[in-house]
Protein backbone atom coordinates (compact mmCIF):
# COMPACT_ATOMS: atom_id res chain seq x y z
CA UNK A 1 0.00 0.00 0.00
CA UNK A 2 1.31 3.42 -0.88
CA UNK A 3 1.70 5.81 1.98
CA UNK A 4 -0.43 8.96 1.84
CA UNK A 5 2.18 10.90 3.74
CA UNK A 6 5.75 9.95 3.08
CA UNK A 7 8.47 11.81 4.92
CA UNK A 8 12.14 11.07 4.45
CA UNK A 9 15.02 12.63 6.28
CA UNK A 10 13.40 15.99 6.88
CA UNK A 11 15.70 18.52 8.46
CA UNK A 12 14.67 22.01 9.49
CA UNK A 13 16.86 24.58 11.19
CA UNK A 14 15.92 27.88 12.74
CA UNK A 15 19.18 29.74 13.04
CA UNK A 16 21.42 27.44 15.07
CA UNK A 17 18.60 25.34 16.38
CA UNK A 18 17.79 22.13 14.58
CA UNK A 19 14.06 21.77 15.07
CA UNK A 20 13.87 18.58 13.01
CA UNK A 21 16.95 16.41 12.73
CA UNK A 22 16.12 13.89 10.03
CA UNK A 23 12.56 12.72 10.49
CA UNK A 24 11.06 9.78 8.59
CA UNK A 25 7.35 9.05 8.69
CA UNK A 26 4.82 7.00 6.77
CA UNK A 27 1.10 7.48 7.11
CA UNK A 28 -1.22 5.09 5.28
CA UNK A 29 -4.52 6.03 3.64
CA UNK A 30 -7.54 6.24 5.89
CA UNK A 31 -5.55 5.94 9.10
CA UNK A 32 -4.96 8.27 12.01
CA UNK A 33 -1.37 9.00 12.76
CA UNK A 34 -0.43 10.54 16.08
CA UNK A 35 2.71 12.61 16.40
CA UNK A 36 3.35 12.60 20.09
CA UNK A 37 5.86 14.70 21.93
CA UNK A 38 6.44 17.43 24.48
CA UNK A 39 6.42 21.15 23.72
CA UNK A 40 9.25 22.09 21.43
CA UNK A 41 9.76 18.56 20.14
CA UNK A 42 9.21 19.67 16.53
CA UNK A 43 5.61 18.57 16.03
CA UNK A 44 4.29 21.89 14.80
CA UNK A 45 7.33 22.37 12.56
CA UNK A 46 6.57 19.00 10.94
CA UNK A 47 2.93 19.96 10.36
CA UNK A 48 3.94 23.32 8.92
CA UNK A 49 6.27 21.61 6.47
CA UNK A 50 3.63 19.09 5.40
CA UNK A 51 1.06 21.84 4.87
CA UNK A 52 3.48 23.92 2.72
CA UNK A 53 3.77 26.73 5.26
CA UNK A 54 7.45 26.09 5.74
CA UNK A 55 10.14 24.65 3.53
CA UNK A 56 12.46 21.99 4.85
CA UNK A 57 16.22 22.55 4.72
CA UNK A 58 16.79 18.98 3.65
CA UNK A 59 14.93 15.76 3.00
CA UNK A 60 11.77 14.99 1.09
CA UNK A 61 8.11 14.78 1.85
CA UNK A 62 5.09 13.93 -0.23
CA UNK A 63 1.46 14.22 0.74
CA UNK A 64 -1.19 12.53 -1.41
CA UNK A 65 1.48 12.12 -4.05
CA UNK A 66 2.45 15.81 -4.14
CA UNK A 67 5.88 17.00 -3.17
CA UNK A 68 5.47 19.56 -0.39
CA UNK A 69 7.95 21.95 -1.99
CA UNK A 70 7.64 21.42 -5.75
CA UNK A 71 3.90 20.77 -5.87
CA UNK A 72 2.90 23.08 -3.02
CA UNK A 73 0.13 24.71 -5.03
CA UNK A 74 -1.82 21.63 -6.13
CA UNK A 75 -1.18 20.07 -2.72
CA UNK A 76 -3.10 22.87 -1.01
CA UNK A 77 -6.24 21.74 -2.82
CA UNK A 78 -6.29 18.36 -1.10
CA UNK A 79 -5.28 19.17 2.48
CA UNK A 80 -7.00 20.76 5.43
CA UNK A 81 -5.26 22.29 8.42
CA UNK A 82 -6.50 23.21 11.85
CA UNK A 83 -3.70 24.78 13.81
CA UNK A 84 -3.07 25.19 17.51
CA UNK A 85 -5.19 28.30 17.73
CA UNK A 86 -8.73 28.52 16.47
CA UNK A 87 -7.96 30.41 13.25
CA UNK A 88 -11.32 31.98 12.71
CA UNK A 89 -12.38 35.56 12.09
CA UNK A 90 -14.10 36.66 15.27
CA UNK A 91 -15.98 39.42 13.52
CA UNK A 92 -17.63 37.10 11.04
CA UNK A 93 -20.46 34.72 11.83
CA UNK A 94 -19.89 30.98 11.82
CA UNK A 95 -21.55 30.70 8.44
CA UNK A 96 -19.54 33.61 6.99
CA UNK A 97 -16.29 32.09 8.23
CA UNK A 98 -16.99 28.82 6.46
CA UNK A 99 -18.24 30.48 3.29
CA UNK A 100 -15.08 32.57 3.16
CA UNK A 101 -12.90 29.46 3.37
CA UNK A 102 -15.10 27.71 0.79
CA UNK A 103 -14.74 30.62 -1.61
CA UNK A 104 -10.98 30.55 -1.10
CA UNK A 105 -11.05 26.88 -2.15
CA UNK A 106 -12.68 28.36 -5.28
CA UNK A 107 -16.08 26.80 -4.75
CA UNK A 108 -19.03 28.64 -6.22
CA UNK A 109 -20.93 30.89 -3.84
CA UNK A 110 -23.86 28.45 -3.66
CA UNK A 111 -21.60 25.48 -3.05
CA UNK A 112 -19.69 27.36 -0.35
CA UNK A 113 -22.98 28.23 1.36
CA UNK A 114 -24.19 24.66 1.14
CA UNK A 115 -21.00 23.18 2.54
CA UNK A 116 -20.90 25.80 5.27
CA UNK A 117 -24.39 24.84 6.36
CA UNK A 118 -23.53 21.14 6.25
CA UNK A 119 -20.43 21.64 8.38
CA UNK A 120 -22.30 23.74 10.93
CA UNK A 121 -24.96 21.08 11.15
CA UNK A 122 -22.44 18.33 11.61
CA UNK A 123 -20.68 20.18 14.40
CA UNK A 124 -23.91 21.23 16.07
CA UNK A 125 -23.32 24.89 15.41
CA UNK A 126 -26.43 25.52 13.34
CA UNK A 127 -28.06 27.51 16.14
CA UNK A 128 -25.02 29.75 16.31
CA UNK A 129 -24.64 30.01 12.51
CA UNK A 130 -25.54 33.68 12.33
CA UNK A 131 -23.81 34.84 15.47
CA UNK A 132 -20.39 36.45 15.22
CA UNK A 133 -17.70 33.99 16.30
CA UNK A 134 -16.59 36.38 19.03
CA UNK A 135 -19.55 35.14 21.06
CA UNK A 136 -18.58 31.46 20.74
CA UNK A 137 -17.20 29.41 23.61
CA UNK A 138 -13.72 27.89 23.35
CA UNK A 139 -15.14 24.51 22.35
CA UNK A 140 -17.38 26.07 19.69
CA UNK A 141 -14.46 28.00 18.24
CA UNK A 142 -12.41 24.84 17.96
CA UNK A 143 -15.30 23.07 16.28
CA UNK A 144 -15.75 25.92 13.84
CA UNK A 145 -12.01 25.92 13.18
CA UNK A 146 -12.01 22.19 12.54
CA UNK A 147 -15.09 22.70 10.38
CA UNK A 148 -13.24 25.31 8.32
CA UNK A 149 -10.50 22.78 7.62
CA UNK A 150 -13.12 20.39 6.23
CA UNK A 151 -14.93 22.78 3.88
CA UNK A 152 -12.57 21.85 1.05
CA UNK A 153 -13.25 18.12 1.66
CA UNK A 154 -9.57 17.37 2.12
CA UNK A 155 -8.08 13.95 1.48
CA UNK A 156 -5.56 14.55 4.20
CA UNK A 157 -6.29 16.46 7.35
CA UNK A 158 -3.72 17.93 9.72
CA UNK A 159 -4.69 18.77 13.26
CA UNK A 160 -2.11 20.49 15.41
CA UNK A 161 -2.91 19.83 19.05
CA UNK A 162 -6.64 19.82 18.44
CA UNK A 163 -7.60 19.76 22.12
CA UNK A 164 -4.92 21.86 23.80
CA UNK A 165 -6.58 24.36 26.09
CA UNK A 166 -10.01 22.75 25.99
CA UNK A 167 -11.88 21.77 29.12
CA UNK A 168 -12.35 18.03 29.66
CA UNK A 169 -15.88 17.97 28.31
CA UNK A 170 -15.03 19.80 25.09
CA UNK A 171 -12.03 17.56 24.72
CA UNK A 172 -14.14 14.43 24.78
CA UNK A 173 -16.56 16.02 22.30
CA UNK A 174 -13.64 16.80 20.05
CA UNK A 175 -12.41 13.22 20.25
CA UNK A 176 -15.82 11.96 19.14
CA UNK A 177 -15.81 14.35 16.22
CA UNK A 178 -12.33 13.27 15.17
CA UNK A 179 -13.23 9.59 15.36
CA UNK A 180 -16.21 10.23 13.16
CA UNK A 181 -14.11 12.05 10.57
CA UNK A 182 -11.90 9.06 10.19
CA UNK A 183 -14.88 6.86 9.50
CA UNK A 184 -15.35 8.87 6.29
CA UNK A 185 -11.96 7.71 5.10
CA UNK A 186 -9.98 10.89 5.65
CA UNK A 187 -6.32 10.35 6.37
CA UNK A 188 -5.44 12.25 9.48
CA UNK A 189 -2.22 13.37 11.08
CA UNK A 190 -2.59 14.88 14.50
CA UNK A 191 -0.08 16.11 17.00
CA UNK A 192 -0.58 15.96 20.70
CA UNK A 193 1.24 16.22 23.96
CA UNK A 194 -1.32 14.01 25.61
CA UNK A 195 -0.56 10.32 25.79
CA UNK A 196 -4.16 9.53 26.31
CA UNK A 197 -5.23 11.39 23.19
CA UNK A 198 -2.78 9.49 21.02
CA UNK A 199 -3.79 6.25 22.70
CA UNK A 200 -7.46 6.81 21.97
CA UNK A 201 -7.36 8.28 18.49
CA UNK A 202 -4.30 7.11 16.64
CA UNK A 203 -3.85 3.89 14.69
CA UNK A 204 -0.16 4.42 14.80
CA UNK A 205 2.03 6.74 16.77
CA UNK A 206 5.43 8.27 16.36
CA UNK A 207 7.03 9.61 19.50
CA UNK A 208 9.09 12.67 18.70
CA UNK A 209 11.55 14.31 21.03
CA UNK A 210 14.04 17.06 20.28
CA UNK A 211 13.52 16.82 16.55
CA UNK A 212 13.88 13.05 16.24
CA UNK A 213 11.43 10.19 16.04
CA UNK A 214 12.46 8.01 18.95
CA UNK A 215 9.81 5.31 18.64
CA UNK A 216 7.08 4.30 16.25
CA UNK A 217 4.26 1.79 16.19
CA UNK A 218 0.76 1.21 17.45
CA UNK A 219 -0.09 2.19 21.00
CA UNK A 220 0.11 -1.50 21.89
CA UNK A 221 3.50 -1.91 20.22
CA UNK A 222 4.83 0.98 22.19
CA UNK A 223 3.44 -0.29 25.43
CA UNK A 224 4.94 -3.70 24.78
CA UNK A 225 8.27 -1.97 24.35
CA UNK A 226 8.23 -1.11 27.99
CA UNK A 227 7.89 -4.83 28.48
CA UNK A 228 4.74 -6.34 29.81
CA UNK A 229 3.42 -4.71 32.90
CA UNK A 230 4.55 -1.89 35.08
CA UNK A 231 4.82 -1.88 38.81
CA UNK A 232 3.76 1.44 40.32
CA UNK A 233 4.72 2.09 43.91
CA UNK A 234 3.73 5.22 45.78
CA UNK A 235 5.49 5.88 49.08
CA UNK A 236 3.55 7.32 52.00
CA UNK A 237 6.27 9.83 52.85
CA UNK A 238 7.72 11.53 49.83
CA UNK A 239 11.04 12.22 51.55
CA UNK A 240 11.67 8.47 51.44
CA UNK A 241 11.44 8.30 47.66
CA UNK A 242 15.22 8.22 47.31
CA UNK A 243 15.62 5.33 49.69
CA UNK A 244 12.75 3.49 48.06
CA UNK A 245 14.22 3.99 44.62
CA UNK A 246 17.55 2.69 45.85
CA UNK A 247 15.85 -0.42 47.11
CA UNK A 248 13.79 -1.37 44.09
CA UNK A 249 15.27 0.20 40.95
CA UNK A 250 17.36 -2.46 39.34
CA UNK A 251 14.75 -5.13 39.77
CA UNK A 252 13.26 -6.57 36.62
CA UNK A 253 14.44 -6.17 33.05
CA UNK A 254 15.74 -2.64 33.62
CA UNK A 255 14.55 0.90 33.26
CA UNK A 256 12.22 2.50 35.74
CA UNK A 257 11.77 5.93 37.04
CA UNK A 258 11.29 7.77 40.31
CA UNK A 259 9.04 10.82 40.37
CA UNK A 260 10.11 12.84 43.40
CA UNK A 261 7.22 15.20 43.22
CA UNK A 262 4.54 12.58 43.34
CA UNK A 263 6.52 10.10 45.40
CA UNK A 264 5.96 7.45 42.79
CA UNK A 265 8.25 4.85 41.35
CA UNK A 266 7.37 3.09 38.12
CA UNK A 267 9.21 -0.04 37.19
CA UNK A 268 8.81 -2.22 34.11
CA UNK A 269 8.48 -5.82 35.25
CA UNK A 270 8.38 -7.85 32.05
CA UNK A 271 6.59 -11.15 32.48
CA UNK A 272 7.45 -11.62 36.11
CA UNK A 273 4.95 -9.21 37.62
CA UNK A 274 4.07 -11.06 40.79
CA UNK A 275 7.63 -12.19 41.49
CA UNK A 276 8.99 -8.64 41.28
CA UNK A 277 6.05 -7.26 43.20
CA UNK A 278 6.76 -9.64 46.06
CA UNK A 279 10.46 -8.91 46.02
CA UNK A 280 9.90 -5.15 45.92
CA UNK A 281 7.55 -5.23 48.87
CA UNK A 282 9.93 -7.42 50.84
CA UNK A 283 12.80 -5.01 50.23
CA UNK A 284 10.77 -1.92 51.05
CA UNK A 285 9.51 -3.55 54.19
CA UNK A 286 13.07 -4.34 55.19
CA UNK A 287 13.93 -0.66 54.73
CA UNK A 288 10.84 0.27 56.76
CA UNK A 289 9.39 2.38 54.01
CA UNK A 290 5.63 2.81 54.32
CA UNK A 291 3.64 2.59 51.08
CA UNK A 292 0.54 4.49 50.08
CA UNK A 293 -0.25 2.40 47.03
CA UNK A 294 1.12 -0.49 45.05
CA UNK A 295 -0.24 -1.64 41.71
CA UNK A 296 0.62 -3.73 38.72
CA UNK A 297 -0.79 -2.24 35.55
CA UNK A 298 -0.51 -2.18 31.80
CA UNK A 299 1.94 0.58 30.92
CA UNK A 300 0.40 3.85 29.84
CA UNK A 301 1.94 5.87 27.05
CA UNK A 302 3.28 8.06 29.84
CA UNK A 303 5.39 5.16 30.94
CA UNK A 304 6.48 4.61 27.37
CA UNK A 305 7.46 8.20 27.01
CA UNK A 306 9.34 8.14 30.25
CA UNK A 307 11.24 5.03 29.42
CA UNK A 308 12.05 6.31 25.93
CA UNK A 309 13.13 9.82 26.76
CA UNK A 310 14.10 9.63 30.39
CA UNK A 311 11.89 12.64 31.06
CA UNK A 312 8.20 13.03 31.46
CA UNK A 313 6.02 14.41 28.71
CA UNK A 314 5.12 17.98 29.44
CA UNK A 315 1.40 17.86 29.57
CA UNK A 316 -0.43 21.15 29.94
CA UNK A 317 -2.37 22.14 33.01
CA UNK A 318 -5.56 20.78 31.65
CA UNK A 319 -4.50 17.18 31.14
CA UNK A 320 -6.36 14.10 32.24
CA UNK A 321 -9.91 14.15 31.15
CA UNK A 322 -12.77 12.77 33.14
CA UNK A 323 -12.52 9.06 32.76
CA UNK A 324 -9.43 8.18 34.68
CA UNK A 325 -9.00 10.95 37.19
CA UNK A 326 -7.22 8.72 39.67
CA UNK A 327 -4.27 8.44 37.28
CA UNK A 328 -3.69 12.15 37.61
CA UNK A 329 -1.39 12.87 34.69
CA UNK A 330 -0.47 16.32 35.76
CA UNK A 331 3.27 16.57 35.47
CA UNK A 332 5.65 19.41 35.40
Amino acid at each position, binding site marked *: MDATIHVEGIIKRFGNVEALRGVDLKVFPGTVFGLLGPNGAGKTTMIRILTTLLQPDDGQATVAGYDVVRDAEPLR*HVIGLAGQYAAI*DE*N*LTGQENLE*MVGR*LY*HLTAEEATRRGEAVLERFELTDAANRVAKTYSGGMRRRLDLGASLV*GRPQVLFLDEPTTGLDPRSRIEMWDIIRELVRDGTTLLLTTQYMEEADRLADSIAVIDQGLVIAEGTADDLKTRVGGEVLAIRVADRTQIGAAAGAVLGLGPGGGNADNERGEITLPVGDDGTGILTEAIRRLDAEKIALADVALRRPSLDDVFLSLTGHAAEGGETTAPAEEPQRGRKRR
Partner: protein
Amino acid sequence: MSATTTTTTQVARSRTRLALSDWGVLTKRNLLTYIRKPDLLVFSTIQPVLFVLLFVYVFGGAFERILPANVTYVDFLMPGIIIQTSIFAALQTGVGLADDLQKGLIERFKSLPMARSAVLAGRTAADTVSVVFQIVLMVIVGILIGYRLHEGFVEAALAFLLIVAVGYTFTWVAAFAGLALKSVEAVQAATFTIVFPVIFVSSAFVPVDTMPSWIQPIARNNPMTIWVDTVRSLTLGEAFTDSPSELFRSIPDLGALAWQSIAWIAVILAIAVPVGVRMYRRT
Protein backbone atom coordinates in the same frame (compact mmCIF):
# COMPACT_ATOMS: atom_id res chain seq x y z
CA MET B 1 -1.44 29.45 -32.55
CA SER B 2 -0.56 26.10 -31.05
CA ALA B 3 -2.77 24.24 -28.67
CA THR B 4 -0.29 24.67 -25.85
CA THR B 5 -0.29 28.45 -26.08
CA THR B 6 -4.07 28.49 -26.01
CA THR B 7 -4.14 26.35 -22.90
CA THR B 8 -1.45 28.44 -21.26
CA THR B 9 -3.38 31.63 -21.95
CA GLN B 10 -6.54 30.04 -20.68
CA VAL B 11 -4.81 28.90 -17.53
CA ALA B 12 -3.30 32.34 -17.09
CA ARG B 13 -6.67 33.94 -17.65
CA SER B 14 -8.41 31.64 -15.19
CA ARG B 15 -5.61 32.21 -12.67
CA THR B 16 -6.17 35.93 -12.92
CA ARG B 17 -9.89 35.41 -12.57
CA LEU B 18 -9.38 33.22 -9.48
CA ALA B 19 -6.94 35.69 -7.98
CA LEU B 20 -9.46 38.49 -8.49
CA SER B 21 -12.10 36.35 -6.83
CA ASP B 22 -9.77 35.76 -3.84
CA TRP B 23 -9.05 39.49 -3.59
CA GLY B 24 -12.79 40.13 -3.59
CA VAL B 25 -13.45 37.53 -0.89
CA LEU B 26 -10.82 39.00 1.41
CA THR B 27 -11.77 42.61 0.71
CA LYS B 28 -15.33 41.74 1.64
CA ARG B 29 -14.17 39.98 4.78
CA ASN B 30 -12.15 42.99 5.90
CA LEU B 31 -14.96 45.40 5.13
CA LEU B 32 -17.34 43.26 7.18
CA THR B 33 -14.93 43.66 10.08
CA TYR B 34 -15.36 47.43 9.88
CA ILE B 35 -19.12 47.05 9.89
CA ARG B 36 -19.02 44.59 12.79
CA LYS B 37 -16.69 46.75 14.82
CA PRO B 38 -18.24 50.19 14.42
CA ASP B 39 -16.43 51.39 17.55
CA LEU B 40 -13.17 51.06 15.64
CA LEU B 41 -14.38 53.43 12.94
CA VAL B 42 -16.03 55.79 15.40
CA PHE B 43 -12.96 56.17 17.57
CA SER B 44 -10.59 56.49 14.68
CA THR B 45 -12.72 59.33 13.31
CA ILE B 46 -13.24 61.09 16.64
CA GLN B 47 -9.52 61.67 16.93
CA PRO B 48 -9.07 63.66 13.70
CA VAL B 49 -12.29 65.57 14.36
CA LEU B 50 -10.87 66.58 17.74
CA PHE B 51 -7.67 67.61 15.99
CA VAL B 52 -9.59 69.90 13.66
CA LEU B 53 -11.63 71.47 16.42
CA LEU B 54 -8.62 71.98 18.69
CA PHE B 55 -6.43 73.44 15.99
CA VAL B 56 -9.08 75.72 14.54
CA TYR B 57 -10.51 77.02 17.80
CA VAL B 58 -7.41 76.97 20.01
CA PHE B 59 -4.62 77.92 17.59
CA GLY B 60 -6.73 79.42 14.84
CA GLY B 61 -6.80 82.94 16.33
CA ALA B 62 -3.04 83.09 16.63
CA PHE B 63 -2.45 81.70 13.15
CA GLU B 64 -4.85 84.04 11.42
CA ARG B 65 -2.69 87.00 12.49
CA ILE B 66 0.18 85.71 10.40
CA LEU B 67 -1.74 84.24 7.49
CA PRO B 68 -2.51 86.51 4.51
CA ALA B 69 -5.86 88.29 4.89
CA ASN B 70 -7.58 86.24 2.17
CA VAL B 71 -6.66 82.85 3.70
CA THR B 72 -8.54 81.58 6.74
CA TYR B 73 -6.86 79.10 9.07
CA VAL B 74 -9.56 76.48 8.41
CA ASP B 75 -8.85 76.61 4.70
CA PHE B 76 -5.13 76.43 5.37
CA LEU B 77 -5.41 73.63 7.92
CA MET B 78 -7.91 71.24 6.35
CA PRO B 79 -5.63 69.85 3.61
CA GLY B 80 -3.05 68.96 6.27
CA ILE B 81 -5.59 67.47 8.65
CA ILE B 82 -7.28 65.45 5.93
CA ILE B 83 -4.01 63.95 4.74
CA GLN B 84 -3.10 63.18 8.33
CA THR B 85 -6.46 61.44 8.73
CA SER B 86 -5.87 59.48 5.56
CA ILE B 87 -2.46 58.29 6.78
CA PHE B 88 -3.66 57.40 10.27
CA ALA B 89 -6.59 55.48 8.84
CA ALA B 90 -4.18 53.60 6.59
CA LEU B 91 -2.04 52.53 9.55
CA GLN B 92 -4.92 50.26 10.55
CA THR B 93 -3.65 47.84 7.90
CA GLY B 94 -0.65 47.01 10.08
CA VAL B 95 -2.80 46.45 13.13
CA GLY B 96 -5.19 44.22 11.18
CA LEU B 97 -2.43 42.08 9.72
CA ALA B 98 -0.67 41.68 13.07
CA ASP B 99 -4.01 40.62 14.53
CA ASP B 100 -4.54 38.06 11.75
CA LEU B 101 -1.03 36.73 12.39
CA GLN B 102 -1.59 36.44 16.11
CA LYS B 103 -4.90 34.68 15.62
CA GLY B 104 -3.43 32.15 13.19
CA LEU B 105 -5.58 33.33 10.28
CA ILE B 106 -2.58 34.01 8.06
CA GLU B 107 -1.46 30.41 8.57
CA ARG B 108 -4.87 29.20 7.50
CA PHE B 109 -4.92 31.45 4.42
CA LYS B 110 -1.48 30.21 3.45
CA SER B 111 -2.58 26.60 3.64
CA LEU B 112 -5.49 27.27 1.26
CA PRO B 113 -5.23 27.03 -2.53
CA MET B 114 -5.80 30.79 -2.87
CA ALA B 115 -3.75 33.47 -4.59
CA ARG B 116 -0.79 34.41 -2.38
CA SER B 117 -1.36 38.07 -3.17
CA ALA B 118 -4.94 38.13 -1.91
CA VAL B 119 -4.32 38.65 1.79
CA LEU B 120 -2.35 41.85 1.28
CA ALA B 121 -4.35 43.06 -1.71
CA GLY B 122 -7.66 42.46 0.06
CA ARG B 123 -6.50 44.10 3.26
CA THR B 124 -5.07 47.21 1.63
CA ALA B 125 -8.14 47.57 -0.59
CA ALA B 126 -10.58 47.32 2.31
CA ASP B 127 -8.55 49.73 4.42
CA THR B 128 -8.51 52.17 1.52
CA VAL B 129 -12.30 52.09 1.57
CA SER B 130 -12.12 53.04 5.23
CA VAL B 131 -9.61 55.77 4.30
CA VAL B 132 -12.12 57.19 1.79
CA PHE B 133 -14.88 57.06 4.38
CA GLN B 134 -12.82 58.97 6.92
CA ILE B 135 -11.69 61.55 4.37
CA VAL B 136 -15.30 62.23 3.40
CA LEU B 137 -16.20 62.58 7.05
CA MET B 138 -13.40 65.07 7.62
CA VAL B 139 -14.44 67.11 4.62
CA ILE B 140 -17.98 67.28 6.01
CA VAL B 141 -16.73 68.32 9.46
CA GLY B 142 -14.51 70.92 7.78
CA ILE B 143 -17.38 72.36 5.78
CA LEU B 144 -19.48 72.57 8.94
CA ILE B 145 -16.87 74.76 10.61
CA GLY B 146 -16.30 76.98 7.61
CA TYR B 147 -13.94 75.15 5.25
CA ARG B 148 -14.45 76.36 1.67
CA LEU B 149 -13.00 75.26 -1.67
CA HIS B 150 -11.66 78.22 -3.61
CA GLU B 151 -11.20 76.33 -6.86
CA GLY B 152 -13.40 74.20 -9.06
CA PHE B 153 -14.76 70.70 -8.86
CA VAL B 154 -12.02 69.17 -11.03
CA GLU B 155 -9.30 70.52 -8.74
CA ALA B 156 -11.16 69.26 -5.70
CA ALA B 157 -11.58 65.83 -7.27
CA LEU B 158 -7.87 65.66 -8.09
CA ALA B 159 -7.02 66.68 -4.53
CA PHE B 160 -9.34 63.97 -3.23
CA LEU B 161 -7.69 61.36 -5.47
CA LEU B 162 -4.26 62.40 -4.28
CA ILE B 163 -5.29 62.10 -0.63
CA VAL B 164 -6.72 58.61 -1.23
CA ALA B 165 -3.54 57.62 -3.07
CA VAL B 166 -1.46 58.78 -0.11
CA GLY B 167 -3.64 56.67 2.19
CA TYR B 168 -3.30 53.64 -0.08
CA THR B 169 0.47 54.10 -0.10
CA PHE B 170 0.56 54.07 3.68
CA THR B 171 -1.56 50.92 3.90
CA TRP B 172 1.41 49.16 2.28
CA VAL B 173 3.91 50.79 4.62
CA ALA B 174 1.72 49.69 7.51
CA ALA B 175 1.35 46.20 6.01
CA PHE B 176 5.10 45.80 6.12
CA ALA B 177 5.24 47.06 9.70
CA GLY B 178 2.42 44.72 10.75
CA LEU B 179 4.07 41.65 9.23
CA ALA B 180 7.49 42.57 10.56
CA LEU B 181 6.45 43.39 14.13
CA LYS B 182 3.70 40.75 14.42
CA SER B 183 2.08 42.24 17.50
CA VAL B 184 -0.85 44.63 17.52
CA GLU B 185 0.57 46.80 20.30
CA ALA B 186 4.04 47.00 18.78
CA VAL B 187 2.64 47.94 15.39
CA GLN B 188 0.46 50.66 16.85
CA ALA B 189 3.29 52.15 18.87
CA ALA B 190 5.87 51.90 16.10
CA THR B 191 3.83 53.26 13.22
CA PHE B 192 2.49 56.23 15.15
CA THR B 193 5.92 57.05 16.53
CA ILE B 194 7.41 57.10 13.05
CA VAL B 195 4.56 58.87 11.34
CA PHE B 196 4.05 61.63 13.91
CA PRO B 197 7.25 63.58 13.30
CA VAL B 198 6.82 63.13 9.55
CA ILE B 199 3.43 64.79 9.80
CA PHE B 200 4.46 67.54 12.20
CA VAL B 201 7.75 68.50 10.54
CA SER B 202 5.84 69.56 7.46
CA SER B 203 3.59 72.34 6.25
CA ALA B 204 0.53 70.40 7.51
CA PHE B 205 -0.29 72.74 10.39
CA VAL B 206 2.02 75.75 10.01
CA PRO B 207 3.83 77.33 7.07
CA VAL B 208 7.37 75.97 6.71
CA ASP B 209 8.75 79.52 6.63
CA THR B 210 7.78 80.00 10.28
CA MET B 211 10.05 77.13 11.36
CA PRO B 212 13.67 77.49 12.53
CA SER B 213 15.93 77.73 9.52
CA TRP B 214 17.76 74.43 10.17
CA ILE B 215 14.48 72.53 10.10
CA GLN B 216 13.16 74.20 6.97
CA PRO B 217 15.06 72.11 4.40
CA ILE B 218 13.87 68.93 6.12
CA ALA B 219 10.28 70.11 6.23
CA ARG B 220 10.37 71.38 2.67
CA ASN B 221 11.58 68.04 1.29
CA ASN B 222 9.22 66.04 3.43
CA PRO B 223 6.72 64.28 1.14
CA MET B 224 4.00 65.30 3.59
CA THR B 225 4.75 68.97 2.80
CA ILE B 226 4.63 68.27 -0.90
CA TRP B 227 1.29 66.45 -0.70
CA VAL B 228 -0.22 69.07 1.59
CA ASP B 229 0.97 71.96 -0.58
CA THR B 230 -0.34 70.23 -3.69
CA VAL B 231 -3.76 69.89 -2.10
CA ARG B 232 -3.58 73.53 -0.97
CA SER B 233 -2.73 74.66 -4.46
CA LEU B 234 -5.69 72.66 -5.76
CA THR B 235 -8.16 73.93 -3.16
CA LEU B 236 -6.93 77.40 -2.15
CA GLY B 237 -5.82 78.39 -5.61
CA GLU B 238 -4.26 81.80 -6.17
CA ALA B 239 -4.61 82.89 -2.57
CA PHE B 240 -1.97 80.27 -1.85
CA THR B 241 0.10 80.03 -5.01
CA ASP B 242 0.31 83.69 -5.97
CA SER B 243 0.18 85.08 -2.46
CA PRO B 244 2.42 88.09 -1.85
CA SER B 245 2.80 86.73 1.69
CA GLU B 246 6.36 85.87 2.72
CA LEU B 247 5.02 82.70 4.32
CA PHE B 248 4.23 81.14 0.97
CA ARG B 249 7.09 82.52 -1.04
CA SER B 250 8.96 79.21 -1.29
CA ILE B 251 6.01 77.13 -2.52
CA PRO B 252 6.74 75.59 -5.94
CA ASP B 253 4.15 75.92 -8.69
CA LEU B 254 1.38 73.34 -9.02
CA GLY B 255 3.02 71.47 -11.89
CA ALA B 256 6.19 70.83 -9.90
CA LEU B 257 4.22 69.93 -6.79
CA ALA B 258 2.02 67.53 -8.72
CA TRP B 259 4.79 65.50 -10.26
CA GLN B 260 6.76 65.43 -7.01
CA SER B 261 3.64 64.20 -5.22
CA ILE B 262 3.18 61.39 -7.70
CA ALA B 263 6.88 60.57 -7.66
CA TRP B 264 6.91 60.21 -3.87
CA ILE B 265 3.89 57.92 -3.98
CA ALA B 266 5.46 55.84 -6.73
CA VAL B 267 8.77 55.56 -4.88
CA ILE B 268 7.22 54.59 -1.56
CA LEU B 269 4.95 52.02 -3.22
CA ALA B 270 7.85 50.67 -5.28
CA ILE B 271 9.65 49.92 -2.02
CA ALA B 272 6.79 49.03 0.32
CA VAL B 273 4.88 46.64 -1.97
CA PRO B 274 7.71 44.22 -2.81
CA VAL B 275 9.11 44.40 0.70
CA GLY B 276 5.66 43.76 2.17
CA VAL B 277 5.01 40.86 -0.21
CA ARG B 278 8.38 39.34 0.65
CA MET B 279 7.66 39.73 4.33
CA TYR B 280 4.32 37.99 3.81
CA ARG B 281 5.93 35.07 2.03
CA ARG B 282 8.46 34.69 4.80
CA THR B 283 6.09 34.82 7.76
